[in-house]
């Protein structure tokens, strides 16, 4: 509790927290939506925002607000699939590479570093071209997860490298603790804060890539996400026809989401790293 109170002293954490709560509420609201997101022409088309349709309606005859609740929920699902699975890979690779060392370390580090270098966006485009019609939330999340781990694995590896040299490692080994138990019981707690902040970063990376791929039409456009909403609005010429409520809803929602996720991760990692905390407070 005290941690949370301390974190609330940071203006970035406060704002990010409020925005994310609003976004989560929206995502939950989608379960109570009066409309089916996959159906067209359920409401009058191209209506301006009104009491009945809070954010207006679009040219497909869908309610923008309720569509946005589904979009937020689905974008969060993609990003969570990607973030959780890639975290699992990152932890495994980081721990193994850092603890085992030697050839295993070199091979894993090489694969990770190469993935950092290769223009992943193009690789995603290639994969999406091949499986476009199967590109649902889960497939997209998995695809991003498979490539989203290298940087974080690198961070965890370097952390384990330094933990391995600490005295408690030797004490544990000498008193007969097994490798698996040592790693799980002693090392994981140290890496938890790092894993949490990279989890948030990975989520925002996944949402960004989803929007990019969706705007290029490389995902299943019938599933509402922030990206597909933007795609429909843009390619239905919402800008030229001045249907601002339609195009601005996904744009503003995604901007808020990116900034909030980033501020959350920065404020938490600064809080966890005392060196920067001292610099910020000015002690």
């Amino acid at each position, binding site marked *: 509790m005290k941690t949370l109170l301390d974190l609330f002293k940071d203006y970035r954490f406060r704002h990010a927290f409020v925005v994310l709560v609003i976004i989560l509420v929206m995502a939950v609201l989608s379960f109570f939506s009066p409309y089916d997101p996959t159906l067209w022409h359920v409401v009058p088309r191209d209506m301006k925002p009104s009491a009945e349709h809070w954010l207006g309606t679009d040219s497909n005859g869908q309610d923008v607000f309720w569509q946005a609740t589904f979009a937020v929920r689905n974008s969060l699902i993609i990003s969570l699939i990607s973030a959780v699975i890639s975290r699992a890979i990152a932890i495994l690779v980081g721990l193994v590479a850092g603890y085992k060392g030697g050839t295993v370390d070199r091979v894993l580090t090489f694969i990770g570093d190469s993935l950092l270098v290769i223009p992943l966006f193009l690789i995603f*485009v290639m994969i999406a071209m091949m499986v476009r019609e199967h590109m649902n939330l889960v497939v997209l999340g998995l695809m991003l997860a498979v490539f989203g781990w290298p940087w974080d694995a690198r961070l965890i590896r370097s952390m384990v490298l330094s933990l391995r040299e600490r005295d408690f490692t030797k004490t544990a080994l000498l008193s007969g603790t097994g490798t698996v138990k040592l790693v799980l019981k002693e090392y994981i707690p140290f890496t938890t804060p790092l894993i949490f902040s990279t989890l948030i970063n990975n989520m925002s990376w996944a949402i960004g890539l989803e929007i990019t791929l969706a705007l290029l039409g490389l995902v299943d456009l019938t599933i509402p996400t922030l990206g597909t909403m933007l795609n429909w609005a843009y390619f239905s010429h919402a800008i030229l026809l001045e249907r601002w409520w339609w195009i601005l809803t996904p744009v503003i929602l995604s901007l808020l989401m990116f900034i909030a996720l980033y501020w959350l991760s920065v404020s938490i990692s600064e809080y966890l790293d005392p060196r920067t905390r001292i610099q910020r407070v000015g002690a």
Partner: protein
Amino acid sequence: MKFAKRYLIPRLISYFLVIWLGVTFVFFIPRLTPNDPVMRMVDQMRARGSTMEPGTMDDIINDLTEMYGLEGSTLEQYRDFWVRLAHGDLGVSFFQFPAPVTELVSNALPWTLGLLVTTTAISWILGNIIGGLAGFYTRAIWSQVIDAIAMLLRPMPYYVFAFVLLLLFAYVWRWFPVTGGASLGAMPEFSWVYIKDVLWHSFLPGLSLCALGIAVNFQVMKLLVQNVNAEDYVQYARLGGVTDTRIVSKYVIRNAVLPQITGLALSLGQIFSGALITEIVFGYPGVGMLLYRAIVNGDYNLIMGITLLSIVGITTAMLIVDLTYPFFDPRVRYS
């Protein structure tokens, strides 16, 4: 000699290994995904309503199979893939038949390179200078204002940021053109009018790349400078009465900038991906736009060619940046 052994040779080995891994990825993607690129293309041709005799269809399928190098066992295919790549043969484009992929890419490349090199240079230099100064004068108001702006810009993905710029400057205020690399019908020539036209068209794409690039470099550099600031030699110089201007320009920034050179090399892949996306948003006639048309037309071969060339190009650029490192850091040079 020592330099070559300790620095050059390991670096060259990793260069070739990265290219090998990237190309292997590209090779296996169509083979591990459920769809067959050949049948896909045939389906597309059918969908466009072209009817032909059964024999012709078989010929087309054979030709396409050969074009994609899908004959023989996987191992043979893999070998042929490398042989073709080594000859610079990336096949032909499907939607601009029979233009070779290499020709299409090399036509689009000058636009992308021009945009990319200029914006990367500007954002690296400006970001490091501003970030360095802001890290040195942490308490100044301007430093905190820029920091807040960077906190807003940093998390945005290229597509979203470029899109917002386009909405504001091209649609709402109409200061800059919505699309294109030059005015319609303008002939490429070496004249002030044409250059001005190109610069005017590339302003918004350039701005979107620069703003995000500066924000990233600014934040990293600021952190680096704050760390260098705490070093003993900086304290010593300060106590010895060396002026702030001299400390920051001669001692602090020069030391803090070294990791940034490595950082530049590491981030080239992302910058390049970002440039492709920016080009698509602004309809800028570079490789990104070529990629977009390839996506829209389902031209898998062209996408594959662009990916392969990008992997080679980016790793080579990284190698060059890395190899210049010893010129900046005497410790590497003499060891």
